[in-house]
């Protein structure tokens, strides 16, 4: 230290130090990659696109319009790799931070609060049903509006850790909700979840092996059927039955194999599928993405019926008008949202309005077949482990599903609320 003090009193020391600083400065400048500042069409500076050359295959979220940082956050004002990628998010649709990305002011702020209250995000109907089956009323009295986002909270986890019903949900149902972090679970489950992108994202093929440019996944306004069926393929198997697939418990020559290894037979599909209608052509935005209300079951959330279009004026039972329903003279049409193709809607025939058919719902006569399973039961083995889809790790307690046999048959009919005859299937 005394030497340093002595040195600090000499001019040559400071001159030498100045030269060292100058050398460092020249070295850092020589290393620097100089680039022109990139701007968006709005005139805003966005340096991300200086390096990121990925092609965004759609107009609304075009890179030159919204840039990268509007969705993926980070700092668009610097070319410093570390600083630019600070707080970056891979999946902007994740409900944990969607308020800062898709839901930011100027983009889709109103949709976000509705989606968070929708059944696809809360899963309340499923959770409630499972807990009721296990006769664990204390869970619902503790959390009457228990939703999947709460299951991620450590406090709720510790208070409900002895619930077998919730353990069953976490292990067998917990991968089909919007709060699931995309890519967190292994195997085919990694494609599930992701908030907004669970439905609105479509993977695009890269331009080719020889191309250095990667293609950004495509965001679509109307989710394709494949995205819906990624989750809606269990319980009533609606996603399969609609497109003419029947889950066969045995499998055979020519059968298709689903991503999770289940065997699928080709059977005749639903007439709407044959005509080219996707799920979102009938199901409204409010049904799927929520209308802001908290619903206790799917039954409460659904609002379209066959009569909404067939014989109706396109108004749902909650009084909402279908945006793709058109009336031209005496004829009614439904527009396919993606292709804009108009489909003529058939009116109910005279036999439908006969007095003795009054209590029948349309599907009780028109549904050709419905998959039915018999002898379904579950086994719980506390010694083994099972992947908890909420915690994303193996925990004690293995659930094994069994069924005796499955049949594709005429739907079973039941009387709902002592009023209407409806089709039923085990869920």
């Amino acid at each position: 230290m005394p030497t340093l003090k002595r040195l600090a009193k000499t001019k040559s020391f400071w001159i030498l130090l100045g030269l060292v600083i100058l050398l460092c400065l020249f070295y850092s400048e020589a290393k620097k990659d100089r680039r022109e500042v990139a701007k968006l069409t709005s005139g805003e500076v966005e340096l991300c696109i200086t390096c990121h050359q990925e092609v965004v295959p759609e107009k609304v979220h075009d890179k030159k319009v919204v840039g990268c940082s509007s969705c993926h956050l980070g700092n668009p004002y610097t070319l410093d790799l570390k600083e630019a990628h600070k707080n970056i998010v891979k999946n902007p649709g994740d409900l944990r931070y969607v308020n800062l990305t898709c839901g930011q002011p100027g983009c889709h702020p109103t949709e976000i609060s509705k989606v968070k209250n929708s059944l696809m995000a809360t899963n309340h109907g499923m959770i409630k049903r499972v807990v009721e089956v296990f006769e664990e009323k204390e869970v619902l009295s503790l959390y009457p509006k228990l939703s999947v986002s709460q299951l991620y909270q450590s406090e709720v986890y510790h208070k409900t850790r002895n619930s077998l019903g919730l353990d069953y949900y976490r292990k067998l149902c917990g991968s089909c909700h919007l709060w699931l972090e995309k890519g967190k679970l292994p195997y085919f489950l990694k494609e599930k979840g992701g908030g907004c992108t669970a439905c609105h994202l479509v993977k695009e093929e890269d331009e080719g092996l020889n191309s250095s440019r990667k293609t950004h996944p495509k965001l679509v306004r109307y989710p394709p059927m494949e995205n819906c069926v990624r989750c809606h393929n269990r319980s009533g198997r609606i996603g399969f039955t609609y497109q003419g697939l029947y889950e066969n418990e045995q499998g055979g020559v020519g059968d298709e194999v689903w991503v999770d290894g289940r065997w699928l037979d080709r059977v005749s599909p639903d007439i709407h599928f044959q005509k080219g209608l996707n799920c979102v052509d009938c199901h409204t935005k409010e049904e799927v993405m929520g209308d802001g209300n908290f619903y206790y079951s799917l039954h409460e959330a659904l609002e379209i019926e066959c009569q909404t279009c067939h014989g109706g004026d396109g108004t749902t039972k909650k009084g909402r008008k279908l945006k793709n329903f058109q009336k031209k003279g005496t004829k009614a049409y439904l527009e396919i949202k993606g292709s804009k193709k108009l489909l003529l809607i058939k009116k109910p025939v005279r036999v439908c309005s006969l007095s003795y058919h009054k209590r029948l719902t349309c599907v009780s006569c028109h549904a050709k077949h419905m998959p039915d399973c018999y002898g379904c039961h579950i086994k719980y083995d506390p010694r083994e482990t099972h992947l908890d889809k909420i915690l994303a790790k193996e925990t004690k307690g293995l659930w094994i599903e069994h069924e005796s046999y499955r049949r594709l048959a005429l739907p079973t009919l039941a009387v709902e609320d002592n009023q209407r005859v409806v089709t039923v299937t085990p869920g």
Partner: protein
Amino acid sequence: MVVSYHYFYTEPLYSVIRLESSVPFGRFFRSLHYFSSQLALISTFFHLIDSLYKGWHHKKNFVAWLFLVLSFIVLIFITFTGYVIRFDEVGKLAGTIAENLCLSIPYVGGVLRDLLFPISKGGLYRVYLAHIYGSFLLAIGLFVWHASIKRVLSLKYAPYLYLNLILPLIFYVPLESEKGKTIVTGPWFFWGAQGLLKFLPPLGVLFLLFLAVVWLILLGFKPARKFSSWVGGILILWLLVYVIFSLIIYRDAHT
């Protein structure tokens, strides 16, 4: 000089980023500009504390003390306008807050806004001028009067000069984006005011800031010497409150 040569108030953010990304040594000069202002602010603050501790505010004449206090205030103002005129997302927000704070002052608020922060009316031109004029005022009117060139060039001050050069080489202070933030913070010396604004009306916060300046000036005022322990105590208390509110904002922004 290098920074101002490449800066255009009509395209503030673009020109600052271009200075960093395209101009040779641009990032170094911007960082030097930033760190020297921060060091000047911190040094002046400690100079104030040191003067109070050693009793120079009583030993020297009142005008010298008044100039030291004013230097500090002008330095805060210049640093703040510097934060605004780079016009990144947080700078934009800081400018809007400053403009509205001016407008909250009765009678003279409109005039003060038009003079210093008419951002919503005329962009950054006047804020930029205030930054430049303020810097000249500080350099010529106050610092030159306050410290002689001979003293500045002596080896005694070399470590401080070299610190200014070394810091920009080691640390990089990027322009800030509000993306991904639920709470945006202003410059660090403004955190306390930002915290106070959460609980008090704008005029109340301005009054508290003004009160601190008056109190600080009063410390060097000879007729008020017999109350100096009271005034000093109140100032320490005020500073404590300001630090607490700064910490509140820091906590809110980082949780």
